[in-house]
Structures are given as structure tokens and as C-alpha cells.
């Protein structure tokens, strides 16, 4: 009996330890990133690092300003949202409200399939198809803000569709029926009652999409040109924070390497902010429902 009780207690302890690994993992990741990245930021100067427009690690003296890359990440993400959000939300509306059952059986797994495609395949597809298309029809080299926005827009579609659809389905049917009974058309009922009622869920999907777009690396590095500049037009090249890390980490040493890790820290902080706002949206909607 006592051995049994001991075993129970011991295993409970083991399960508890495995449960706190995720806390430990986040803490260790934070420590490694900040310990290696923040001193480099201090050495370069926080203002110089975050606000500097010059990124030339091989110059003497070298300068490490990632302002253009921060703007690049924001531009590319915004471009992805312009393409992905309207199509994503409208597709979710279609799936939740307009789709015949037989078509749904095909379309739903298809959107899930889209989520499973590895980012490198998206990148290669963009490189071989979208980049040449832009080069021929819009001019420039093709590797551009536009190419990255299109590919990322497609990549965030499944995230936005999936979360928006379940949010739309969670709205009580009586809202829709009430609107119909008042004489509204089907479309009007959907867009004036169901969509507004599900807005926090839809917003959560969009925020998650932002997180995916800003953190995406392998797909954009192949197609965005990677010039360190603030693009003046859609067909100009752009470099994101993620691309900066992946492009130069291989051969960097010393302060250059630390500056790249600091770039990762900036990206990490962006993502933490997104995760926090995501949780705020979630808890707000839970309160709303409860």
C-alpha cells in the first residue's frame, strides 16, 4: 500500500515536472536571446540600432541600423494582410453560411491542406512563378515587396479562414433568424448581424495571421530581393528582420553576429506583443460570452 502511494506521488511529481517544461523553455529562450542580444544593442546604441538607416557590417567603422528592416517587416506584413484578410474573411463567410454541403466537404479539407504546405515550397513557387510574372508585367527585378505580400497573403489564408469560420459558427442562430424575420436579405443578415457578433473571433484570426506573416522566413527570403532599403514602390526589393538573420548568420562573427541576434530579439519582442494582444482579445471575448 505504501509503495503504491509512493509511486502515485512520484509519478505526479514527474507529470508536474514535464508540465513546467514549457515555462522553463520560454524562460531559457528569453535568457539566451536577451543575454546575447541586449549587450550588442547597448554597444551599438539603442537609438542607433533601432533607428539607424545604415546596415553595413563590413564597412570600417561598421554600422548596424535595422530601421529599414523593421519597416520592411511591417510593409510586408501589411501587404499580406491587404491580400489575405478580405479574401480570408469572405471565404470563411462562404464556408460558414453559403457553401452547399457537398462543396464544403471538398473546400474545407482544401483550406487545411493549404496550411500544411511547407514554407520553403511556397517560397520556391513564388521564386519560379510569381517573381517572373511581376518582372514581366510590372517591371523591376520581380523580387519585390509585391511578391512577398502575395505569397504571405496566401500563406495566412488558412489561419484566417479557420479561426474566422469557427467564430462565425459560434454565433447563435437566433441572430440570423431575427434579421431574416425583419425582412433583411440573407446577405444583409449575415453581414449585419453574424459578422459583427463574431468580430472578436475574426480579429483573433487576423492577429494570428499577423504573427505568422511577420515571423515567416524561408518563403520571403527567396522572393523579396533583400535590399536594405525602404521600398518606394511595390516592385522595389525589401528586407525583413527574419531575412536579415537567415542571410547573414552563416558568415557573421563578433559584433555583426551579436547584432543579428539582437535583430532576433526585436522580432521576438514583436511576437510577444502580438501574443499578448491575442490573449487580451481572447479573455475579452470569453468575458463577453460568459
Amino acid at each position, binding site marked *: 500500500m505504501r509503495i503504491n502511494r509512493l509511486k502515485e506521488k512520484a509519478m505526479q511529481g514527474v507529470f508536474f515536472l514535464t508540465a513546467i517544461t514549457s515555462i522553463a523553455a520560454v524562460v531559457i529562450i528569453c535568457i539566451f536571446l536577451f543575454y546575447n542580444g541586449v549587450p550588442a544593442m547597448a554597444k551599438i546604441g539603442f537609438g542607433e540600432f533601432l533607428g539607424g538607416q545604415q546596415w553595413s557590417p563590413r564597412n570600417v567603422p561598421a554600422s548596424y541600423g535595422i530601421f529599414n528592416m523593421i519597416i520592411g517587416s511591417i510593409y510586408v506584413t501589411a501587404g499580406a494582410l491587404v491580400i489575405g484578410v478580405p479574401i480570408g474573411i469572405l471565404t470563411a463567410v462562404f464556408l460558414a453560411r453559403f457553401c452547399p454541403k457537398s462543396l464544403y466537404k471538398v473546400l474545407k479539407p482544401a483550406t487545411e491542406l493549404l496550411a500544411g504546405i511547407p514554407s520553403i515550397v511556397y517560397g520556391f513557387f513564388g521564386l519560379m512563378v510569381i517573381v517572373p510574372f511581376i518582372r514581366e508585367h510590372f517591371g523591376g527585378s520581380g523580387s519585390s515587396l509585391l511578391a512577398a505580400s502575395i505569397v504571405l497573403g496566401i500563406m495566412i489564408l488558412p489561419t484566417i479562414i479557420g479561426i474566422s469560420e469557427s467564430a462565425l459558427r459560434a454565433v447563435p442562430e437566433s441572430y440570423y433568424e431575427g434579421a431574416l424575420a425583419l425582412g433583411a436579405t440573407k446577405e444583409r443578415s449575415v453581414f449585419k448581424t453574424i459578422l459583427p457578433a463574431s468580430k472578436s473571433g475574426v480579429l483573433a484570426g487576423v492577429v494570428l495571421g499577423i504573427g505568422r506573416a511577420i515571423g515567416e522566413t524561408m518563403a520571403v527570403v*527567396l522572393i523579396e530581393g533583400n535590399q536594405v532599403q525602404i521600398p518606394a514602390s511595390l516592385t522595389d526589393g525589401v528586407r525583413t528582420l527574419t531575412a536579415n538573420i537567415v542571410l547573414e548568420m552563416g558568415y557573421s562573427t563578433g559584433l555583426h553576429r551579436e547584432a543579428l541576434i539582437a535583430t532576433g530579439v526585436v522580432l521576438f519582442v514583436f511576437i510577444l506583443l502580438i501574443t499578448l494582444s491575442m490573449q487580451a482579445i481572447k479573455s475579452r471575448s470569453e468575458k463577453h460570452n460568459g
Partner: protein
Amino acid sequence: MADNNAVTDIKEIKAINKVTFKQRMISYKRRPLSLVMLILVAVAAFLSAAALIFLIVYILVKGVPNLTPDLFAWEYNSDNVSCMPAIINTVIITFLTLLIAVPFGIGAAIYLAEYAKKGNKLVKVIRTMAETLSGIPSIVYGLFGMMCFVTALHWNLSLLAGGFTLAIMVLPTIMRTTEEALLTVPDSYREGSYGLGAGKLRTIIKIILPSAMPGILAGIILAVGRIVGETAALIYTAGSATGTVSGVMDSGRTLAIHMYVLANEGLYTNQAWGTAVVLLVLVFGINTLSAFIAKKLGSKKG
């Protein structure tokens, strides 16, 4: 009785209230914006579907003719750029990752679902942290793995370092799916087991885990899909060495990294298309298997 009557009444009314096509057209004429919205919705759904179909068909058309025996030769050289060593490396790294992530993920899920009390502060923290982990981009995992496993622990570029990095990355996936699977096990199973005198541990191992197995398996397979497609987290942890590895401390490229290198060099476009097909088929196969198993679980429940 009165309630029942009301229900049947409503059903009858619904049947009478069928909107004919003509009536619909009239209402659209009165509200043209509704028609515009309908068209927009249809166009959006069409675009989403078209993007997927175009992507897959294009890759298959370009890639399938390049699936030559050369591409699957056992030895890699710069003539055949065979993806066979990369496939083997992918399998090794998948097993390494699962070896680490599965026990931790399932253990954590058991704690959350079976031991933790409702409203426990710590549980909330664990959930938040797992959510944070799942939001971190893979390139940040790659950076962390490089600093922690490759540099600080002196594992150098190796499959082991890559496996550990990926294990942290897929941990939240396995945790979440396992917990969901555990929560679908009816409480009566637990009560029955306790009623027969079994302890908590015995109940978990003999009753709950076996009944939740399909759900857990579906989650693990989902994680495999992520591992196979991962590039950014591996490029500075497992490295991109060609050829077959002799142990887990060797550097080796997985299939996804192999494809990145081919695409980046731009010299072997045809082989890259072929590799893309292999990668797509693998990932789709894995995801379909996961969905199939999860569905089986769903039908058993219902």
C-alpha cells in the same frame, strides 16, 4: 404538450416560407448591395480554392517529370543532387525530435488534464507559456538552438542540436492535442476504474491513455508534418551538410533544407521541382493520415 405543438407549428411555417428564385431576384433588385456581397463572397472562396489548386497542379506538372531514379540515388554528388540522404536525415531528425517531445508533451498534458485543479494559477501560466511557444517564429527557435545547443553545449552543427530545437518547437502542438484527447475521455471511465479500486496512476495508464490514443497519435503525426517541412529552425542547428550521416552528432540537411539550398543556388531548378513534389507528397500524406486517425476517434465517440 403545448410546447410540442409550437415546435411543429414552426416547422410547418418554415416549409411554407420557401423563397423562390423569382422572389430572391426581386429582393436583390431592391437591395443591390446584397447581390454585390454575394458575388464578393463567391469570388473570395473561388480565389482561395484556385490558389491551392494552381499551386499544387503547377508543382506536380513541373516536378513529376523530374522524379528520375538519379534523384533517389543512395549517394549524393553534385551531378545527381540526390535527395535520398536528405530523406534519411529527415527520418532520423523526426525520430530524435519525437523521442524528446512526446514524453514531455504527453506528461504535461496528463498533468493539465488529470491532476491540475480547476482555476489553478500555475495551470494558467503553463497554458500562456505554451501559447507563447507556439507563436514564436521558427527562425527565433533556430537562433536559440544555435546559441544554446550548438555553441553553449558544444554540440556543433548536428542532428541532435536540430532535434532538440524542433522538440521545443513542436512541444505545444503535442501538449494541446493530447490534452484535448484526454478531455474527450468520458468521466464514467475514470469513475468505473476508481470504483474497481484502481489508483489514479493505474487509471491513467490502463484506461485513459488507451482510450485517448487516436487523438494523441493524430497530434503526434501533425507534429511530424511540421518537422518535415521545417527549414528556418534547422539551418543553423542541424546545418546543411550533404551526404549521409554516421551518427547524431553529425551535421546533415533535411529534405526541406535540401530544397532551400537547391532553390537558393539556382543551379538545379529541375531537381528542386522534383524535391518539391517529394516534400508535398510527404507532408500531405502525413496530414491526411493525422486527419484520418482523428476522424476515427470522432466516429467512435459519436
